[in-house]
């Protein structure tokens, strides 16, 4: 069973999507470690280390995602999580922006997968299977 860490980053309290993600990933046979809302990068990284997780799914809904996710890849590497998969989704920037550009910005920051608003979490399941192997 693959372990993944999920949570909502920064001063963000949007809890609904997070609960749904936990439910769906669990249903799909993942070992889900949910650190909940109002989590910072350290919380994500510590949880991943402790549970030997293979991927971190960061949610950011409230618009500060761009600030909150800064240097997350670097911080993972420093913590020895060199190969961990980093996904981010939700409403990760302020306002309605061209998603192609947003995706490029976050990829440059080291995220492996970047999702637009309202993504069906089933899409991420497919990608997790691809990226982590069955």
């Amino acid at each position, binding site marked *: 069973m693959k372990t993944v860490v999920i949570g909502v980053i920064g001063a963000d309290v949007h809890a609904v999507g997070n609960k*749904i993600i936990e439910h769906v990933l669990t249903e799909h046979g993942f070992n889900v470690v949910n650190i909940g809302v109002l989590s910072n990068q350290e919380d994500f990284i510590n949880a991943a280390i402790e549970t030997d997780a293979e991927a971190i799914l960061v949610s950011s809904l409230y*618009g*500060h995602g761009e600030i909150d996710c800064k240097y997350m890849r670097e911080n993972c590497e420093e913590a020895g999580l060199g190969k961990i998969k980093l996904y981010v989704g939700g409403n990760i920037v302020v306002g309605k922006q061209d998603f192609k550009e947003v995706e490029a910005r976050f990829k440059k920051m080291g995220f492996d997968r970047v999702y637009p608003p309202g993504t069906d979490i089933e899409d991420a399941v497919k990608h997790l299977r691809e990226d982590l192997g069955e």
Partner: protein
Amino acid sequence: MIENKKIPWEKFLEKRARILTQWETGKSPLLDLDKAVEHLRSVPDHKNFAKKLRKAKAEGITMIQPRAGVALIDEHIKLMQYLEKEGEADFLPSTIDSYTRQNRYQHAQDGIKESERVGRSLLNGFPAVNYGVEGCKRVYDSVHVPLQARHGTPDARLLTEIIHAAGWTSNEGGGISYNIPYAKNIGLEDTIRYWQYCDRLVGYYAEQGIEINREPYGPLTGTLVPPSISHTVAIIEALLAAEQGVKNITVGYGQGGNIVQDIAALQTLDELTNYYLKLFGYGDVFVTTVFHQWMGGFPADEAKSMGVIGLAATVAAQGKATKMITKSPHESQGIPTKEANAEGLRASKIITRLLQEQKFPSSKRLSAEKDIIKKEVNALIYAILNVGKGDFARGVVTAFDRGIIDIPFAPSEMNAGKILPARDAEGCIRILEFGNLAFDDEIKAFHKEKLKKRAEEEGREVSFKMTIDDVYAVSMGRLIGKPKKREAGS
């Protein structure tokens, strides 16, 4: 221990001195109470939130107000002016950014700087504390309608001091409604105390003859909240505010989706709040209602979002809400541009005006829905009073702790999180799992019966899957979530 008791003035001043040191803008000479009173006295009636609400209620018109706020003050002023002029907003907000809400003023300051650098707002709201009374006054001076702070701040004491001194005559929030949906592990006792402070300040101004409006935040998590639960929170926050001397209160409700339930909710919200205020000795409080356009997940499509907005406005106007908080066609995507925000406003505006002479007719069906809401609210209020041994402040803390009152989908650890809502066959929000909710068997049987009927129609068991399907439904264009065939796990 927490108590629902008016804060003695000296104690208030003691606290105040400390609070004003939390950030440098607390030192402003404009925060001198006499100066603030003087400025507030100069606010003309049409810019006074409380007075404009009285007028609207008398005329039976539903007023409209957007959410909006950006990092940079000049941009924020332009935004406000645009929404007043092009959006025809009756009331203006200033939505506060999330760092300020968490009292992270240094983060907010960084956000301002970074926004200046990149030339677009990187904050999701207006950092009012950082701009201080002087900044907020500039905003106030630049518009012709009343201003309100809208946020989600557990500890909004400094923010409250600043905005009122600047002439903003309304403040949204409350010790419960700005904690449970907006925080993870801040104690309820603490937030109730913080908000008693905010209310006490408004009470002080009231003693000086200055009417300021207070608005408990109605929709809570915005996601399948049964009306009786949000009503109970609103009523308790109204009672707590009234005890501190607040005289003008707007209780809120977020659109549920079933029109009859929504109208019943709006009517009972007004009736019950007035009833309990009078019952507990606050008969001189003026009550109005605010209807929030759909607070759950929006459809991605802009035209469909406009449809949702139109439906919401039709309901609010027929339910005679005094005010309505509008959404925009960008809702599912992100904070709207000023243009999109104004579109939501104007679509709402014409509906409220076209319907201003109309009212949803009373009917048996409506009465039935009102009755069940009233029964449930009474049960909850009574239970809270009971565990509080006659004190609502104490009662509500214990009640949350024990799940006697419980809010679905809330992030807060102070909340039991045991209840599960789901829609019935007509789309009314009912309860599937009650946890410890203080409902008697008759009420529970009613909910179970309603959900059984839906389950039968859909040929499935009553279960959490319904709740999940309902959470998604509106963004998929339906009110009641239909069973989705998901492949089982790998």
